[in-house]
């Protein structure tokens, strides 16, 4: 085919492409890690939005009114604000990790950054699980100390050791189930990203040997 030969001639004559520098190639290779870290940042922000939306739908004020707990609700609010503060700090740390990783050039530094990011995410998950347990315990305490609907149970517990054991059993089971569900949630949410980040780390390690 005559036309194809013409094309071939032109094709081979012209190979003046904008050349990519070594530095640019290094950056391309490292961008993979930075995109995972970017996703960690995005997911953490989406997560905080999710919890905030859920808490908007569950209005606890009525419950506190019923339980005559209003005087203590200011403490709950303080705890809530503290919790948001800590989460915002974590999000800031995620952002910082993302920034450092996307600008890192040396392999050694990148490996360090990846390990640091992993640690940050792990602390974040542990903190959240801790908050879950704490709020459950607080919830039980409020229910037993202030909710009039539970007072009949209190009497029973006082009279019967079996009921006491059963109640404690149920409470422990509830904490366990909640902890399990949240653990699974975080494992799914961040576990996949962390695993991919770690795979990237292992490849970098291979190179560094």
């Amino acid at each position, binding site marked *: 085919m005559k036309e194809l030969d013409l094309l*071939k001639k032109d094709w*081979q004559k*012209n190979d*003046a492409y904008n050349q990519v520098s*070594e530095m640019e*190639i*290094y950056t391309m290779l490292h961008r*993979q890690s930075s995109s995972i870290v970017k996703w960690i940042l995005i997911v953490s922000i989406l997560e905080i939005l999710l919890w905030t939306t859920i808490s908007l739908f569950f209005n606890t004020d009525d419950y506190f009114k019923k339980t005559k707990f209003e005087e203590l609700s200011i403490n709950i609010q303080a705890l809530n604000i503290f919790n948001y503060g800590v989460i915002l700090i974590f999000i800031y740390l995620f952002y910082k990790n993302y920034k450092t990783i996307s600008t890192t050039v040396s392999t050694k530094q990148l490996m360090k950054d990846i390990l640091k990011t992993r640690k940050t995410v792990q602390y974040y998950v542990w903190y959240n699980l801790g908050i879950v347990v704490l709020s459950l315990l607080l919830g039980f305490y409020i229910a037993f100390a202030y909710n009039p609907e539970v007072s009949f149970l209190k009497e029973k517990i006082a009279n019967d050791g079996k009921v006491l054991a059963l109640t404690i059993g149920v409470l422990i089971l509830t904490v366990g189930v909640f902890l399990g569900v949240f653990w699974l949630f975080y494992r799914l949410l961040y576990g996949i990203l962390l695993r991919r980040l770690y795979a990237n780390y292992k490849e970098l390690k291979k190179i560094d040997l």
Partner: protein
Amino acid sequence: MKNMSLEQSFVQQLKTNQNIIHKICRLYTNGEDAHKDLFQEITIQLWKAFPKFRGDSKFSTWAYRVALNTAITLYRKSTRTVKTVDYENHQYFISNEEYNYEEEEQLKLLYRAVYQLNDIEKALVFMYLEDKDYREISETLGISEVNARVKMNRIKGKLKKILNP
């Protein structure tokens, strides 16, 4: 080479052979941004595959295979939204001394026609333009030599049809 890390040796070889990737990008993309995106994607895929590259073939031969596979896969994934190609923006080159208006027009039409081919066909045309024989084409694309010949003939027919509708 021995004191060099795997990464350094990869980056250097890629730098020397980067025109392979540029050329593939030229056939598979239109516009500078898409060109850069595909270049980066191919670089990452080459890098991922690099530990398996043992050096029993030339870097360039190996790069042809991985790069074309990446382009083909990416091209499949993206829904082909680009029906009308803005070929004026595309970089192609006519050397000044042999400036020939008729030839330039014809080349423009030819590049446009090639762009309309599908992913595999482009890969074949690319190898053809790179002046590879059918043995190398069949090895790189993982098809038999006979199949490569048959496909190439069909492509020629298809191009003719596009050029003279």
